[in-house]
């Protein structure tokens, strides 16, 4: 099978979910009731808006992740050809990791890795 057949897996996955939901739509009971449509928050009526301002900590971690994830994209091809390139590749990646480590250290000292 070639990589184009990935579309097959996409279709089969979508079919699995779609079929089951359509089946449940017909097979399952369906009784409308305004009480049922309320958000479930332990029985008491919900207070205020749901989409409020959110803790900025999550955003910080997402940004740091983005930086490191892009870096790790560079590491993958290096890892594949490491054996062939030998010492040169090793020294280069040590320098790369040094810079990466400095970045992590900076974020650490700045308190970006601390949850508050």
């Amino acid at each position, binding site marked *: 099978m070639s990589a184009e*057949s990935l579309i097959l897996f996409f279709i*089969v996955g*979508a079919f699995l979910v779609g079929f089951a939901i359509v089946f449940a739509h017909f097979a399952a009971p369906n009784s409308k009731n305004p009480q049922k449509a309320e*958000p479930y*928050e332990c029985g008491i009526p919900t207070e205020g808006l749901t989409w409020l301002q959110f803790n900025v*900590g999550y955003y910080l971690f997402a940004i740091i992740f983005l930086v490191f994830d892009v870096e790790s994209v560079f590491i993958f091809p290096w890892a594949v050809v490491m054996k062939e390139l030998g010492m040169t590749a*090793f020294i280069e990646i040590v320098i790369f990791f040094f810079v990466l480590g400095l970045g992590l250290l900076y974020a650490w000292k700045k308190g970006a*890795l*601390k*949850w508050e």
Partner: protein
Amino acid sequence: MNFSLYDFTSFNQWIDKFLNDNLPAFWAVAAEMVIIGVAILLFYALVGLFLVYAERKVCAFMQNRVGPNRVGPFGFFQTIADFIKLMLKELIYIKNADQLLFNLAPFIVIIASFMAIAAIPFAKGLHAIDFDIGILYVIAVSSLGVVGILLAGWSSNNKYSLIGAMRSGAQIVSYELSVGLSLVTIIILAGTMQFSEIVEGQRNGWFIFTGHIPAFIAFIVFLIASTAETNRGPFDLAEAESELTAGFHTEYSGIKFAFFFLAEYMNMFIVASIAATVFLGGWMPFHVGSWAGFNQVMDYIPPFVWYIGKTFFVIWIMMWFKWTFPRLRIDQLLTLEWKYLLPINLVNILIMAFIVLMGWHF
């Protein structure tokens, strides 16, 4: 046709030839796709059902209970009964929920886990697609599931769901780094990202043994990080029952909920398969150096059995985690990743590169 349990290559070629001889080219390809699609779908459903049963049974034994034991022998058909029940439950439409995103979320989580299965080698010649970037592909696709989880939490119009989804997002993206980097350690040793070549490279010893201590550290890091990435306990903050009712899938009912549940178990199966394939030799039998007799006996066990055995061993370890450790807080979770696993991983990669460079690996 010579069918053998030890090498599926000839079996595949036989099917291919049979279809091409009897059908026009286009329909032969279509028939092949249908066969593969149905086979993978069946496998997916069976593994999902079995894992839910296994989890309940393992949990029960760890807590000194019996677990499900009424439906069928040893309660074996319990999950099938549960599945039928969930199919017949009402789908509730939530007031003020974003209906499009709300309905899209189960599709995304299931498709992500389904596409990841495409690259996993089950036995020699028994894989859907053999990518030359197999590992990268699986990491990329399986991390798409987080989009589904975020959508589910965001669109539910429920505070618990939103908190759960946000936690889950922070957690999955953080631990994805460690999953990727611990696999890099083995890519250095193997020199390839193709699953079939990685397995072939372990003919004379699994990478966890041939890679000295760095490979072992990478295995431990991968286990911890992949447990976190699949949202399983002790890292199940996203659906912490005691604080968030059910986290991101609080508002889902019936079959839609069942798909989140199924996706969680299938993700566990996928990461366990990768751990088994990359670190524990995939379908390669266990060989000990010069013990010819012992190796002969090991070779006699079909590769498929080896693969399943190793995968379920890893899954069992992950279940053991869940029922042993208490849940982490979000700050502890992020500290563990960014201040421990990530630096350890980076140093580990350098050590592994040095070992490979010096030719000290076996």
